[in-house]
């Protein structure tokens, strides 16, 4: 019986034949902590008797949820983590670089075949680089900081076979929302989702990141794309490593194989208050919105903002809608700036903020009042996710967000 990519990654790390269902104490190649989950992870590291971390070069630390510090307790957490980073000689990107997951990939901190953990559920995004990456809690992270290893139950894999060519203004976010609607909010619990097929082979890295990012929204432990030319091209300049083959065998055992044809796909919108509620935009077109958020680790890259700008054209955003645009990282911000898009967005009426999690954090800024409605390119629309539990969050692509920000109601991006 052949092996899946995930089984191959664990087998190679541990030098044996490791199969789905087995529990193994595996070494990790990288660990990431941020301002929300980091302080507790550090505290647990010390409670476990830790004095020196396993290897400072394999750990990064940064702040993205509450930056610049939005409260005195947040500022205190930053101080605590800065001190830890300095004492342990851990690289600290501080408040400067952006949203953790974007930064990990940009800085080459995740690569094909590696096992990466992050104290954040959307760590599964690094599967876009062919890594096995999964989100863990703070106590598990304390263990990792001390030992450089963690118990993993090796997951079975769901294969999502994607075929066809995306229609105009339909893309990766629409695809992943429709996959989530199909698999369900807990349909992939304790499993990995491998995104495969011609459409994925042709999909750029930002699109792959969007898909892998949202694997957790189906309960998955990881999302992954087999590394190919596009992946290795992305790794150039980020890591010095020679390309090597890493893909699931033809006779690998999957929990299930699902087919997703995209050629006739409509833009998708996930309605409140779950992520697996995706419907074609036509079903909710005309819904009133108060705020639009374009950004986050899911859709805050230059390509996403460029797509929004293309839809915007020479129009203005609706003056009754608060439009908040946040590039996911400093690099993405600079690309957006150099392309002239920030000026364009600001002139059209948007607020463009510095890289951070923004309204998706549900605590820093951009919160909803009771009764308000947000349309967001982020990954979660849970009750209260962006403020009041009496507010509503709809999820969509950057194109749909931009189109709706122009009209003031949820709008099909192909109609503006």
């Amino acid at each position, binding site marked *: 019986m052949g092996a899946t990519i995930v089984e191959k990654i664990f087998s190679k790390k541990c030098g044996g034949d490791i199969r789905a269902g087995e529990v193994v104490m595996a070494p990790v190649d990288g660990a990431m902590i941020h301002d929300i989950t980091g302080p507790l992870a550090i505290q647990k590291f010390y409670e476990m008797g830790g004095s020196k971390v396993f290897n400072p070069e394999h750990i990064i630390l940064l702040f993205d949820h509450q930056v610049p510090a939005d409260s005195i307790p947040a500022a205190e957490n930053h101080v605590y983590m800065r001190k830890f980073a300095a004492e342990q000689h851990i690289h600290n990107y501080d408040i400067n670089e952006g949203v953790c997951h974007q930064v990990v990939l940009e800085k080459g901190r995740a690569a094909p075949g590696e096992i990466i953990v992050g104290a954040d559920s959307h760590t599964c995004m690094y599967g876009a680089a062919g890594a096995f990456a999964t989100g863990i809690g703070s106590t598990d992270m304390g263990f990792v900081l001390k030992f450089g290893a963690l118990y993993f139950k090796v997951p079975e894999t769901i294969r999502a076979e994607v075929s066809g060519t995306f229609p105009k203004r339909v893309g990766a976010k629409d695809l992943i929302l429709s996959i989530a609607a199909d698999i369900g909010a807990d349909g992939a619990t304790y499993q990995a989702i491998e995104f495969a097929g011609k459409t994925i082979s042709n999909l750029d890295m930002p699109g792959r990141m969007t898909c892998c990012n949202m694997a957790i929204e189906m309960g998955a432990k990881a999302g992954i794309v087999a590394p190919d030319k596009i992946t290795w091209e992305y790794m150039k300049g980020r890591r010095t490593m020679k390309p090597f083959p890493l893909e699931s065998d033809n006779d690998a055992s999957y929990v299930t194989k699902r087919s997703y044809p995209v050629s006739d796909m409509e833009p998708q919108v996930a309605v409140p208050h779950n992520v697996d509620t995706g419907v074609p935009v036509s079903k909710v077109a005309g819904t009133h919105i108060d705020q639009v958020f374009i950004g986050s680790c899911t859709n805050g890259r230059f390509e996403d903002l460029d797509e929004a700008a293309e839809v915007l054209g020479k129009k203005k955003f609706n003056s009754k809608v608060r439009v908040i645009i946040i590039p996911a990282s400093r690099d993405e911000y600079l690309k957006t700036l150099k392309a002239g898009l920030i000026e364009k967005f600001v002139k059209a009426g948007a607020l463009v903020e510095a890289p951070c999690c923004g309204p998706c954090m*549900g605590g820093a800024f951009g919160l909803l009042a009771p009764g308000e409605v947000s349309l967001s390119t982020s990954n979660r629309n849970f009750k209260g996710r962006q403020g009041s539990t009496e507010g509503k969050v709809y999820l969509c692509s950057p194109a749909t967000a931009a189109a709706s920000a122009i009209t003031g109601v949820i709008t099909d991006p192909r109609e503006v």
Partner: protein
Amino acid sequence: MRVWKFGDDIDTDAIIPGRFLTIYDPRELAKHAFEGTRDEYAKKVKEGDIVVGGRNFGCGSSREHAPLALVGGGVSVVVARSFARIFFRNSVNVGVLPVVCRDADKIADGAKITLNSKKGFIEADGKRFRIEPVPEFMQGIIDAGGLVAYAKSLKEVPLCTKSQR
């Protein structure tokens, strides 16, 4: 010892909203548990009470603040039809026992509840419901007194050793 009953897909934002994540003290977190979702919970929850959910309890964010907010209110057992992966592990790690019970939906809010984990059942308002055993490797961590105690007991990490599910 009463049941606090919740439905399917209770996410960690519902258990503890994002705006309280600068807090790490379980007792302080407990004051805001389920705020905006079920406000009476934080005011009335008592030591030994049990939270019961449906499918996919604890989905969403990896915030360990969620099980900590339960611990701080005196809840050390959560029963659900199924759990989200990260919440399940976080719970074990901070001393909340996640109990899978396929019949969790049959347990009523406010019911009197007791857990008999050795014999593998819970009893709610006189009715017994079978519970599933905790995976073996997680039981090892529970038996050690949680992940912190387990980590302290390790001289070195047993790298690449397997244990069956």
